[in-house]
């Protein structure tokens, strides 16, 4: 009877490490990323860009069920954010433990480093980048960008007729509210507090006699807020809520509705001082001013497709003016901010009419990382294939000799 040799058992941690750094996992994750991107692109038609990004690429939704053309596709898929994270871990561990650390593999190692940088860039962009837009009329100056989607409640202290200080209830304190929720905001530096009820990210003020298009909040001063489904283009949502102003003893001073698109803010008078309350898009002050000197545009002949549009601006910083030309694919980069030429208006302007220009303003510490990572991957692959080619030619020559 032959004696059986004890098989060499791998340590469980080693097994985990092998799995996490393995090629099988890498292949599955790359495939999943491709499928998720494809399904996300299809669903974007119905859901809009913002919602799709939240559904497919947000850390808060680990799993998702895709839909296409209104129909649910009965599969549960992991969120691309977590797939990307796992892929980063896989690539990092694979590079450290599986790759061959020798000169002959230097190109592959460089290419891996490039891919890691790209994934890291996506992570930094997801968590630390800010986007907004700045619209300026020709001949006017602006120093503020507005976020596309984030609504805030602003309480402005007035000195005479001019605003003197703006207190902000930030988006993070509003976006988890449902219409049936109530939240008390203790305004630490103001003589009153605000109670917010019936907050809805998309609503319309309506009077009781108007045709009903959705659920309605409490009637206040002849108006309800009627709740609407979020728009496919989320930047078109018009948030609103009911606000009750309470003194520090909790007694009601006033109540009113506030709504993003209101013509004027609500006014509160407390202790002979005026305050205004309004819903606004979250704004973001620039470290410099931008003056739009001129805007020009051109269509492709016989179409409404833009061929060229560009803005001549003056960047004004600490009294110094600098002339900059911002074109469709040539943004202005300054002080960590990038100004892209995004759009313009009015769309039906005739020759000679004053125009306004819209810039997308982006602050992204990883702005150039994808480009750098592509260069690194390119150089890595060039080295790897170059070495292979040289070796092949060398071996062929040796064999011929």
């Amino acid at each position, binding site marked *: 009877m032959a004696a059986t040799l004890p098989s060499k058992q791998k340590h469980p941690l080693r097994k985990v490490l092998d799995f996490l750094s393995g090629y099988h996992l890498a292949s599955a994750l790359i495939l999943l990323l491709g499928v998720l991107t494809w399904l996300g692109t299809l669903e974007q038609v119905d859901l809009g860009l913002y919602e799709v990004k939240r559904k497919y690429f947000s850390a808060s939704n680990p799993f998702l069920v895709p839909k296409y053309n209104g129909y649910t596709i009965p599969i549960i898929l992991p969120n691309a954010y977590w797939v990307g994270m796992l892929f980063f871990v896989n690539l990092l561990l694979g590079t450290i433990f599986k790759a061959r650390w020798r000169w002959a593999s230097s190109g592959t190692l460089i290419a891996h480093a490039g891919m890691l940088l790209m994934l890291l860039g996506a992570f930094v962009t997801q968590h630390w980048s800010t986007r907004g837009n700045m619209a300026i009329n020709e001949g006017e100056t602006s120093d*503020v960008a507005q976020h596309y989607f984030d609504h805030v409640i602003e309480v402005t202290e*007035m000195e005479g*007729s001019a605003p003197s200080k703006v207190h*902000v209830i930030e988006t993070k304190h509003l976006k988890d509210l449902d219409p049936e929720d109530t939240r008390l905001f203790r305004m*630490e530096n103001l003589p009153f507090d605000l109670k917010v009820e019936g907050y809805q990210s998309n609503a319309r003020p309506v009077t009781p006699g108007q045709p009903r298009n959705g659920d309605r909040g409490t009637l206040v001063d002849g108006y309800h807020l009627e709740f609407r489904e979020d728009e496919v283009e989320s930047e078109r949502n018009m948030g609103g809520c009911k606000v009750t102003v309470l003194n520090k003893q909790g007694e009601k001073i006033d109540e009113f509705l506030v709504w993003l698109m*209101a013509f004027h*803010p609500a006014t509160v008078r407390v202790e002979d001082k005026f305050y205004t309350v309004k819903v606004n898009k979250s704004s973001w002050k620039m470290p410099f001013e931008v003056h739009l000197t001129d805007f020009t545009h051109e269509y492709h002949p016989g179409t409404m497709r833009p061929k060229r549009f560009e803005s001549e601006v003056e960047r004004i910083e600490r009294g110094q003016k600098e002339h900059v030309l911002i074109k469709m694919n040539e943004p202005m980069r300054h002080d960590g901010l990038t100004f892209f030429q995004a759009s313009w208006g009015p*769309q039906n302007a*005739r020759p000679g009419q004053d125009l*306004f220009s819209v810039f997308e303003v982006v602050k992204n510490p990883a702005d150039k990382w994808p480009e750098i990572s592509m260069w690194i991957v390119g150089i890595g692959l060039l080295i790897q294939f170059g070495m292979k080619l040289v070796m092949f030619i060398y071996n062929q020559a040796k064999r011929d000799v």
Partner: protein
Amino acid sequence: MRLLLIFGGLAVLAGLTACKEKPAEVTVTETRELNLSDEPPKLGATSDQRFGQPGIGGGGDVGAGEYAFVKPGDWVRRPGTEFRLLNFVAGENEEVEIYLSKSRGGLIGNIARWFRQFGKPEPTESNLGALPRLVILGGEGILVETAGTYSPGMGRPEAPGFALAGVIGQTPSGILTIKMIGPEASVKGEMERFRAFCASLKEVE
């Protein structure tokens, strides 16, 4: 199996984080810097003034700076822009936009652009006379109606099945246009109210 374990673990983690209770109270200390867009607001505005819908359900005279008009009952007024002196939406889902603008230049150029946006041949001076007329600000306005695929331009998606009803008239201060754009059926449904609105428009001294 191993993949299932990993994703299962992630799901449990997500479940735990989702269990956070919504706070009933929040203390607010955040402020923001004033910027160039912080202009003096109108203080003491009523809800009607703030939401711009006086006379809803019954219509009413509403001043808009230099214009007075009777707003059709079910139109909803929206804040204007520099180039939309009056701005309304209509229809069950507010799918129709109606706005009044002032511009310079020729009638033919404006009308040609409207047709171009619907992929229709541009009219010539000679066939302008065939277009119907409407009374606008006591003078004569040309009524333009067209339908088809609307191309708003600037990369915005084309909208098939749309229609335009627009009135254009020469006034002493330049060309005045009132445009109504939206899905064809909705625009047709608003046509009578559009005509009534145009007829009610007056310049305020």
